């Protein structure tokens, strides 16, 4: 701890805008400074600072007992995180790409998510890493992983769309006593349009609370992650071209789902469109739809619809991937249809 804070982690202190990636870095850094029990594990996070450089400078500052370069063994080090969490540490595990969380699926779903229930105590673990498509990464460097964990009771799942939220949510995730899957979209990491000046003081964004991105009275659009920004674009178009007022809800936390926020909005608009980048069948839209049936069926003036990626692996070639991913035009079409319903 004799090292000074690395300059690139002092942007907020200097009042400079930060990217979403820098916001995550700052959040991690501050939590590690605040709480000795927080430590990091992952592949190439130390010397190299992580494949995306989220932890650049951390090794020098915190030393190799708190920033651990692991073998390529996602199951092994995630399991080790569980052991460390048992002993009162608060591990933050990086998956180099979240696609590679799969080898840890067993220990995450069977051990970590069930620990509290089995009487083995809380599991204050964050598993974080880059997700999402649009970067020509092909089938193994582009996945969204929320639905692999959404069905397992015990997890929380977080997926920020702005720098402010990313910092506040990663801090909240680290302080949470439940295991949190934390997804960071690669296309948002360094997006210049997402750079913003963050508050210099310590803040968190509470888990489980959605954010109203914009208000509108004709249609509720529920989304998260990179799709928030495509949805905003679509909403602007719908407003300008069609005079349709679109209310956008950014879920931020997917589990637990802030259904109150959605229900309240639905009660005002009568229409719901869900947009997710993840593939279609078994995506989160289904759960939202049935919860709205349970809680607000009578307010529905139109079917609950969704715009999503198609049901296939993520293809590599740009033309294929663009088709695979939901595009602004798809959202506009769906919104227009619903508004006219």
């Amino acid at each position: 701890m004799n090292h000074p804070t690395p300059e690139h982690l002092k942007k907020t202190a200097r009042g400079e805008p930060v990217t979403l990636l820098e916001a995550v870095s700052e959040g991690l850094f501050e939590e590690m400074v605040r709480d000795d029990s927080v430590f990091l594990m992952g592949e190439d996070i130390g010397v190299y600072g992580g494949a995306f450089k989220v932890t650049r400078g951390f090794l020098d500052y915190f030393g190799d007992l708190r920033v651990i370069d692991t073998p390529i063994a996602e199951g092994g080090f995630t399991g080790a995180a569980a052991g460390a969490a048992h002993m009162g540490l608060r591990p933050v595990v990086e998956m180099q790409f979240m696609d590679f969380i799969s080898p840890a699926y067993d220990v995450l779903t069977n051990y970590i998510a069930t620990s509290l229930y089995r009487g083995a105590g809380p599991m204050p673990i964050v598993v974080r890493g880059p997700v999402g498509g649009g970067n020509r990464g092909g089938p193994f460097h582009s996945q969204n992983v929320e639905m692999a964990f959404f069905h397992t009771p015990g997890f929380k799942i977080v997926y920020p769309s702005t720098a402010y939220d990313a910092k506040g949510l990663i801090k909240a995730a680290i302080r949470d006593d439940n295991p949190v899957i934390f997804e960071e979209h690669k296309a948002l990491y360094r997006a210049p349009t997402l750079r913003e000046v963050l508050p210099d003081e310590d803040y968190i964004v509470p888990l489980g609370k959605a954010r109203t991105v914009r208000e509108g009275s004709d249609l509720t659009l529920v989304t998260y992650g990179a799709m928030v920004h495509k949805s905003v674009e679509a909403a602007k178009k719908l407003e300008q071209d069609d005079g349709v007022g679109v209310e956008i809800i950014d879920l931020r936390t997917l589990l637990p789902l802030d259904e109150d926020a959605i229900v309240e909005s639905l009660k005002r608009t009568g229409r719901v469109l869900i947009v997710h980048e993840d593939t279609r069948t078994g995506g989160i839209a289904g759960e939202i739809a049935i919860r709205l049936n349970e809680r607000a069926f009578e307010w529905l003036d139109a079917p609950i619809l969704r715009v999503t990626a198609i049901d296939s692996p993520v293809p590599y070639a740009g033309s294929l991937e663009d088709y695979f991913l939901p595009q602004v035009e798809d959202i506009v079409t769906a919104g227009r249809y619903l508004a006219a319903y």
Partner: protein
Amino acid sequence: MLSVRPMSDSLIAGLDQTQLLGLYHSLILTRAAEERLEMLQKQDHVTGEIYRSIGQEAGAVGAAFALNRQTDGTGDFVAPTVRAAGALFLFGGELVDFFRQYMGRATGPTEGKETNIHWVDFQKGIMGPVSPLGTMLEVMAGITLSFKVRGESRVGMVFCGDDASSTGAWHEGLNFSAVQRCPLILMVEANQWAFSTATGKNTRVRSFTEKAAGYGIGSESVDGTDVMAVYEAVSGAAKRARAGKGTQMVELRYYRRLGYAKHDPQDYVDPDELAIWVDRDPIDLFERRILEESWAAESVLQKISIRAEEECRLAAEQATGEPAPDGQEAGKGVYTDTITQHPWTRTDGPYRRDSSELDT
């Protein structure tokens, strides 16, 4: 008072007579507890599966005896398997909890949510396992990583069946522990069977020490029916682990004398092979040695046996009389903060629009 003749000045493997008899008591207790379990199952008090460790008791007992067992959260840790109940008891796991767990009692450590030795006590250093094989090696790697990071002189011991070694979790956990030089002791329960499949179909090595070499860790193979030998081997391993020499393996060579679980008639086992191992019963062997070396008189051993039986009887009786959990508890304890179970989970009706709203 217990001794026939005074123990020589030099302790036996560093153990005094009380300790030697403690080992004996643990062996007897393990067997008695598991036999009691069978009775309880026959009487329909246990609904789930039950497991026996007959022939393997010395491995669990000798190993656990070599560690620093505390009840205030400062000692070593152990993650037993169903075949290492002896280690659980030595670490302070209560007999009555053992029975409560199998019987799914509300009063048990997991309040009926989990079964058998799957329970955790951080004060005592007990890390009950989960079923997926190999996982506990990963978890214990993390526990012992925390010992290393904090500079504590503690070790963690994890039992794994020989054939759990085929799992990726075993490999990833052991390798992680090895490269991180975690003070972890892996006890390989080489009982020669994976359920019905011979260990030779799970691995081509004859001794797991050959595998240890592939992880660059220290290892030793020991006769798992000889409680003293196990104790000594594990003492050495624990010493090395505590001295910063990193992860250690101790292989326990013995045999799974009963079926995989109660329902398994083990008709795939060669009776002659089995007979050899029945002759090498760890309790008989230790008893003989105690008497031969005159560490205690037969009457003393008998008293210990009777005491162990009585302990088991009483504990089982107590557990049997205790209540099952209230059904609704099933929904609690999934999250540390309460997350409301959704309406209509059971019988709440979904929301209706107020008639006043209906004209909106």
